[in-house]
Structure formats: C-alpha cells, structure tokens
C-alpha cells in the first residue's frame, strides 16, 4: 500500500513506530496529485511549498516525541475557509484574488494539531450547488467515473480524499454539501450539530444552517478529526458551550438494543432501485448487529424544501451583499459611477446560480414580505425541529439514504422532479433542525458507483453517529475498492 492510500490512524501508527516520516507522507500525496489531479481537479490551489515546510517541522517534532493528533497528516481545506496569506476564493470570480489576513478557527485548530495543509479544494461557487459544476475555476470530476459529478458543494474536498490526493479534508454543509458528495464519492462525511464546530472564518452562505465538517476514509478517522474540530469558540456568538467527548471512544462498540428509526416519509417512490437495495442490505446488517428497526414519522418533511428555499437564499442575499468591489475582490473594470460599479461588479463577479439565489432571497425579504415569507418559514422550521424531538422518544438514531441516486453525469441535471425533491429532502431537514448527520459508504451500483447511507442523531450526539457508523462499517464489510485512476 502506498502511504497516500492509508488512513490517519494507520499513518499515525507508522509514524509512532518510526516506519515513516511526515516528509515521506507529504511526498507520496503530492506524487499522487501529480498523477491524477489534471483529470480530477480537486484543487483550486495547491500549497506544496508550505506543506513541505510544515512536514519538515513535523519531522523535527516527531523526533522530539511531540506527536499531536494530526502531526504530519496531509489535509485539504475547502476553499471556503479563510487561510491567512493564502487565497480563499469560494470558487468565485468575485473573490478570485482575495487573500485573507486571518485564519479560520478550524484552520488554527488543525494547524495546532500538526496538520499539513495540501491545498484549497474546489467547490460550487459560494457553496450554492450540489455538483461542483458552478465553480469559477471549472468542475471537479468524480474519481469513480470522470464523466460524472462528485456532488457538491464540497466536491473537491470529497474527491481529494476519494482519490488519495490527501488523507482527510474539511468541507461545509448547509443543505447536504458534505454528506451528499461523501456518498457519491464513497467516503465518510459528517455534518456536526449546529454550534459544535466554529464558523469563524467560514465564508457565510446561510448563517443559521452552515456547519464545517470532516471528510475521511473511515469512521475512526472521522472521530479523530472531530476531536480536533469540535469546541466552543468565543469568536462565534452562536457557538455552543457543550462538553466535547473523546469521539474515538465511540469507535468499535456494538449497537445491541439500539433503536434505528426509519422515517416513512423518506422511503417513497423516486429512490433508485440499486440505492434502495443497498439501503435494505444496510438495514439487515444493523438488525444482525442487534439493532431494532422502528418505523417513525417526520410529518413535516413535505415542507422542508419550502422552508429551506426561503431561509437559505434570504440569509445568503444578505451575506453576499458585502461583495461590492469596494474593499476586496473583483471590481468591474468597465464601470462608471458608484451604482454602475456595484451592478457591473456583481453581475460579472457572480455566476448564474449565485445570482439566482440572491434574487430569490432579496425578494423574500423585501418590503411587506418578511412576515409572510421569512417569518412563516422560520415558524415551520420550529415544527420540523419538533418532529425530530418527537422522533428521539422512539429511536436512538434515524437512518435514511444519503442520496436517492448515484452520481449523475456532468452537465446532465436530473429532470425527475421526485428525485430532485428527495435529493434535497434527505439532507436539508437536519440542517434546518440543527442536528448532526453522517454519511457512510454502504455499497456500489452495478456500474461501480458508490452509494451512501445516512444516520441522523439528536443535538450533540455525534458520538452516537460515530458508534453506529463504526459498528456498521465493521459488520457490513463493504468491499474496499479504489477508483481506477
């Protein structure tokens, strides 16, 4: 096995045993990048010089016996988290040359844990999209089939892990942008509870929905990453002071007697038969592992889309108002007076999808509509949250498919309205309720495309997710394949 093919915990073993060095690991990863990056396009920007310098220092620390949680481990960062002195573009023309003078809190945490940053990963522009096709810097391709999308908006973060162009990465999830690409790329992706991981330095899309989370090759690595990422941050007012368990302690335990809820509103027509079959197999594995399947109802599921498509664009329209060509980023060269400058800059700086959502959001908040639209949506959001609170009375975790279909081809959006509906619904509900969710690989289609299963748990119950995902991973024994690149 090549070094770049290993997991964090496997590499940590080797490092502790003196069998490898941070420099060797970094070299291995960058060689892999040289071999496949042109075809996959996971990255907007590589940080090879910085990475080798950090790896060099890591080796000095390792010799002293100073080994931290991620010492020497190459990590990719979705280009939506601010990195001091390194461009942060959000996949957009309007920020194509923006260099932040500060680090996001998660970047500081990862760095303090010894991580070696490989580069800034590609994404849908401003995290708005589910295919990474809207990036100003060109699309990212699914390593399992280069003609297909990797999912989005954190497409590059997912493919970098799936293609071994890094050992682990971080992305962001507002309506499924970690879990969906994780499923389509055959890796593990977790969206934490809202307030669990700091948003300071995460370029905002929809402030009440955004969360940062890890992409990893297995569940144990996910726990290792969560130990580093989780925690109260005084720089974020919505950060929650909650105890941080050692997430690794949830790995390798059984789930005997656990009640797994199956929401009847999620298992409806529109799910691809191969996905359905994989999910059914998953359920069987869980039952064999001692869990009990319970049918539950999330009655307000049908309203999730409406709530999300009012709240998210509304918040986004306000969050993106700062991109005006005045203080940073792109300014249209052919503009006249101030008003002209604003309009041309934003017209030329933003892509179509971003503009569309800004328009929707601006309309939803405009005079006279606040009560009827945003406020109403916020009230229904409370009802959606309540659905989950009721569900936890009947089950410990909830199981759903992560996506209704495997990855579709680039440029080919599905025209099946049911599929479109379900692809949003599976993941959006947890962002609305603020609960954590994890996607774990559960099989492949006959075409060799990955399928993911999603577990949801209550607020701050990431430990439960780690535990059931780990038990499932162990007992399902899904064949370990690698994308043919």
């Amino acid at each position, binding site marked *: 096995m090549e070094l770049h093919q290993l997991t964090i915990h496997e590499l940590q073993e080797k490092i502790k045993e003196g069998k490898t060095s941070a420099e060797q690991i970094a070299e291995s990863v960058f060689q892999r990048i040289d071999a496949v990056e042109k075809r996959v396009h996971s990255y907007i920007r590589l940080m090879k010089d910085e990475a080798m310098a950090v790896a060099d220092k890591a080796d000095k620390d390792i010799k002293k016996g100073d080994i931290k949680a991620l010492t020497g481990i190459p990590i990719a960062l979705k280009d939506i988290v601010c990195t001091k002195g390194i461009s942060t573009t959000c996949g957009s023309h309007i920020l194509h040359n923006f*260099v932040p003078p500060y680090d996001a809190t998660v970047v500081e945490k990862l760095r303090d844990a010894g991580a070696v940053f490989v580069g800034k990963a590609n994404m849908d522009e401003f995290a708005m999209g589910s295919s990474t096709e809207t990036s100003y810097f060109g699309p990212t391709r699914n390593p399992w089939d280069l003609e297909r999308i990797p999912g989005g908006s954190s497409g590059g973060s997912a493919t970098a892990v799936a293609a071994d162009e890094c050992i682990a990465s971080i992305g962001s999830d507002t309506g499924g942008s970690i879990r969906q690409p994780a499923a389509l790329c055959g890796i593990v992706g977790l969206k934490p509870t809202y307030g669990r991981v700091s948003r300071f330095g995460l370029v905002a899309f929809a402030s009440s929905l955004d969360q940062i989370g890890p992409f990893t090759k297995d569940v144990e690595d996910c726990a290792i990453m969560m130990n580093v990422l989780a925690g109260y941050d005084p720089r974020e007012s*919505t950060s929650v002071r909650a105890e941080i368990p050692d997430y690794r302690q949830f790995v390798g335990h059984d789930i005997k007697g656990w009640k797994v809820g199956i929401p009847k509103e999620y298992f409806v027509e529109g799910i691809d038969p191969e996905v359905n079959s994989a999910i059914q197999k998953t359920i069987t594995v869980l039952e064999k592992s001692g869990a009990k399947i319970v049918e539950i109802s999330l009655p307000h599921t049908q*309203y999730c889309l409406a*709530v999300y498509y009012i709240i998210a664009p509304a918040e986004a329209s306000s969050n993106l108002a700062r991109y005006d060509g005045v203080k*940073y980023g*792109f300014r249209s060269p052919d503009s006249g007076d101030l008003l002209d400058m604003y309009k041309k800059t934003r*017209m030329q700086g933003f892509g179509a999808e971003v503009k569309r959502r800004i328009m929707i959001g601006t309309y939803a908040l405009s005079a006279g509509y606040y009560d*009827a639209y945003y406020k109403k949506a916020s009230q229904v*959001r409370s009802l959606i949250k309540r659905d989950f609170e009721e569900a936890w009375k009947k089950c410990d975790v909830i199981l759903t498919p992560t996506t209704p279909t495997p990855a579709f081809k680039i440029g080919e959006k599905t025209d099946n309205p049911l599929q479109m509906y379900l692809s949003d619904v599976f993941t959006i509900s947890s962002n609305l309720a603020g609960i954590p969710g994890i996607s774990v690989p559960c099989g492949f289609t006959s075409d060799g495309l990955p399928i993911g299963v999603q577990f949801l748990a209550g607020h701050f119950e990431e430990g439960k997710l780690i535990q059931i995902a780990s038990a499932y991973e162990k007992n399902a024994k899904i064949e370990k394949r690698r994308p043919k690149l």
Partner: protein
Amino acid sequence: MKLSSQEVEYVAHLARLEITDKEKDKLTAQLNDILLYIDKLNELDTKGVEPMSHAIAVTNAFREDNIVDSIGTEKSLANAPDARGEFFRVPKVID
C-alpha cells in the same frame, strides 16, 4: 398572483445586480416558484409557533471591552481593488 417584470427589476436593483432581458425572463419564472413554496407553507397553521432563529438556544454571548490589536492600515487595504494612500477609493455617487 405572479411577479411582474417591474417587480423583478426592482428586486435586481435592491440586490445591485444588472440583469439582461433574457435573464429577466428566467428569473421571473424562478421567483414565481417561491410563490409556490409560500402556498405550500400556508397550508400550515403556525399561530403561536415561535419562529426558530437558532438551532440551539444560546443567549447572552458577550465579550469584554478589551482592545485587541487591529490589523493596521496596510493589511486593511491590501486586498482593495482601488486604494489611494490610506483610503479605499470608489467612484462617486451621481444623483
């Protein structure tokens, strides 16, 4: 009840976006979709339901009144598309 072309222009102006006529037609249709979402939400009686602004109820998140180093004029202007001396520069508003 559908949005008029004027309303769409108004929204574009509020958002400081210049849109072409072709885009305007497309956007009008997409904005009209919101109306469908609203119809859907109006199926529900939400009287007395608190609007949910945050997933977790956090209150009184404060900081102390202690000066933290500013980043300085150079760093503040480093990303400016147009800076003059110690200032950001923009075209004037023309009434």
